[in-house]
């Protein structure tokens, strides 16, 4: 077995490894290096030390984007997971046409974020036009718009994961619980949810990182208007890097800070939810 692995390693692993190094590791390390530099194009940089980080932390728009994004993530993680679980729970019951419903719920996930952003901008603007307003009227409107959009896009995807999880719960458990006279609420809280923890780990992880990284939808829906008050972190970083001459390094420093924050949060979340998992 181990001999075989050695023999076939170059064929099966090398291409992926190479792609990983070129497409991921190198840019990643370059990105960290660039965060300590001043530059106009990424191939032509000059080391300046920590000044980029000082500027990044002192930027009030960055801090605003940070809290705005945190609020956004909290809301979307709760709404998406609760809704996705509820729908998955419903669609694993015997309902007519549950397969059609599953497809319908999943479909929004197949559309690209930037297109979704524009479609929703049209939709929301034409509804808001009744009151003579637009989505960029206030950052709250933008916030609600983005929450709606992201939920619409992701609930179906998370639902699929939850459905797979629900179908994996061994029938014996349910039967045994029924024989013991558990009511449906007890079934949900004591049997189903604990057995679902692996799915919950994955879904909450995906929704947290997706929320933090959201970029296209933000760009297309509000582009940060009004006055950068609806700017999420990724867009703020993009605008710092590309929108201002002389701020490329600052944008890069923000990206490194952002990476650390997201990584820490993701690891904590992983710890918390995996601890609750039960071995089947």
């Amino acid at each position: 077995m181990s001999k075989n692995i050695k023999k076939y390693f170059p064929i099966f692993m090398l291409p992926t490894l190479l792609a990983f190094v070129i497409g991921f590791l190198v840019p990643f390390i370059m990105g960290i290096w660039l965060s300590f530099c001043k530059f106009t194009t990424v191939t032509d940089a000059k080391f300046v030390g920590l000044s980029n980080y000082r500027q990044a932390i002192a930027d009030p728009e960055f801090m605003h984007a940070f809290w705005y994004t945190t609020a956004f993530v909290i809301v979307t993680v709760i709404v998406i997971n609760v809704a996705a679980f509820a729908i998955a729970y419903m669609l694993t019951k015997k309902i007519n046409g549950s397969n059609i419903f599953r497809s319908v719920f999943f479909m929004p996930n197949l559309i690209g974020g930037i297109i979704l952003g524009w479609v929703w901008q049209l939709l929301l603007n034409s509804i808001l036009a009744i009151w003579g307003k637009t989505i960029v009227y206030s950052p709250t409107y933008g916030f609600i718009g983005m929450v709606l959009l992201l939920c619409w896009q992701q609930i179906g995807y998370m639902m699929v994961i939850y459905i797979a999880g629900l179908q994996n719960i061994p029938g014996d458990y349910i039967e045994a619980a029924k024989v013991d006279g558990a009511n449906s609420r007890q079934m949900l809280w004591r049997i189903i949810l604990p057995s679902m923890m692996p799915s919950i780990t994955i879904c909450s992880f995906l929704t947290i990182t997706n929320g933090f990284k959201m970029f296209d939808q933000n760009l297309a829906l509000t582009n940060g208007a009004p006055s950068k008050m609806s700017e999420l972190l990724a867009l703020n970083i993009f605008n710092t890097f590309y929108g201002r001459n002389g701020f490329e390094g600052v944008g890069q420093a923000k990206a490194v800070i952002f990476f650390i924050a997201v990584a820490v949060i993701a690891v904590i979340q992983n710890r918390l939810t995996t601890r609750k998992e039960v071995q089947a």
Partner: protein
Amino acid sequence: MRKWRKIAALSLSAALAAGTLYGCGSSDTAETEAAAETEAAAETEAEAQEAEADAEGGEASSDILELAKADAEAGGKVYYLNFKPEQADQWVELAETYTDLTGVQVDVQTAASNTYESTLKSEMAKSEAPTLFQVNGPVGLATWKDYCRDLSDTELYKNLKSDDYALKDGDEVKSIAYVIETYGIIYNKALLNDYFAADWSTVKSIDELNNFEALKTVADEIQAHKDDLGVLGAFTSAGMDSSSDWRYKTHLANLPIYYEYKDEGIDQSPAIKGTYLPNYKQIFDLYLADATCEPTEIGAKTGTDASSEFALGEAVFYQNGTWAYNDIKDNEVVDEDLGMLPIYIGVEGEENQGLCTGSENYWCVNNKASEADQTATLNFLTWVITSDEGRDMLANQMGFVTPFTTFDEYLPANPLVLADEAYQEAGKTPVSWNFTTMPSEEWKNGVGSALLEYAQGTGDWSGVETAFVDGWKTEYDLAHAE
């Protein structure tokens, strides 16, 4: 099992989180490539015509063609990153003509509206960087001057009418303007004549329409009687979408800056006082009040909205420039009905003010490209401004007025350009393009956001004043912090 899941989750989290570090590449340049393909059909036809023209006697440009063929053998290539989306297709067409004639590969990419700087930044980092790119003026040049080849010994510079159209860094000519443009308030002559003829109108001829008071009277009356004229409003929507907001945060903002510079006798400044901001407010208020839509809706209005409103005869006035002709022509409004007024903002003596004329399109040749590519690029440019094909394309198809002496017989038929000539002949003073001295893009964005908030009622005018005056100083200091 558990262990694997853990590893999977960890590598997943690493991959996702780190994707944030570099996943921001801009890909707006793809558009023109697609456009180039659809153009292919039209191409063959054009080629046939060009071949004919050549046979008849394109002798003048034959020398440059020889040079270009040498370029092709030396492996020289041209990659032009174009700033003007309005002419994207025509540049691709011109490039293909050149390739067919000489064998030199010419790629043209066009950055989408408002994304030129970001596209340029990422394109310049590639090994196949643009050999020909643009800066928007002195401020843009400050960022890119280390990448600009000295153009003083080129045909481009030798054929330039005046040094006013070149940007210099010391003795070196770093970039050269290739198109002179004009903006103002484009108007629909037919609709305006209907207004002059109506019994409820106060202003009776275009000659009386030469100051802000008159403009306001006309606009207010048209707005009040919009149903009689069959329009939706006097002005097109003052869209604050990024495809349109530059008309206000940059072009309109030029006027208060122009008058302030004029008062002080300067042509750039580390700080601005905002003496003429009340006039800026006055004209912007007029755009908002007498428009085709409610001020609260402008956040969602795009550049296309405004140009189609004008082109379909739904509005009488449309603030834009000569470049807008391509988008307006061949619609409801015929060429004879197109006119352009100066933007009056209520300054003393503005009866003698002309249209705003200048350039924010300067060619630069990338000095970091290989010598063969640089030579090929310069020869391409020489061909563009000296050959029949190039001149015909720039003047007649793209509708450009150029600052080159070689274009004397090639004047565009663009009626908006003719309107500008009429004002110049009448002895009006053209307003110079001072917005090229605005300290940064960030400053423009700040003013734009403040204007939007003011328009929709979530902010007040003092926000615009702060962004304009304080923002100028902050941004200027940041840009000159070195």
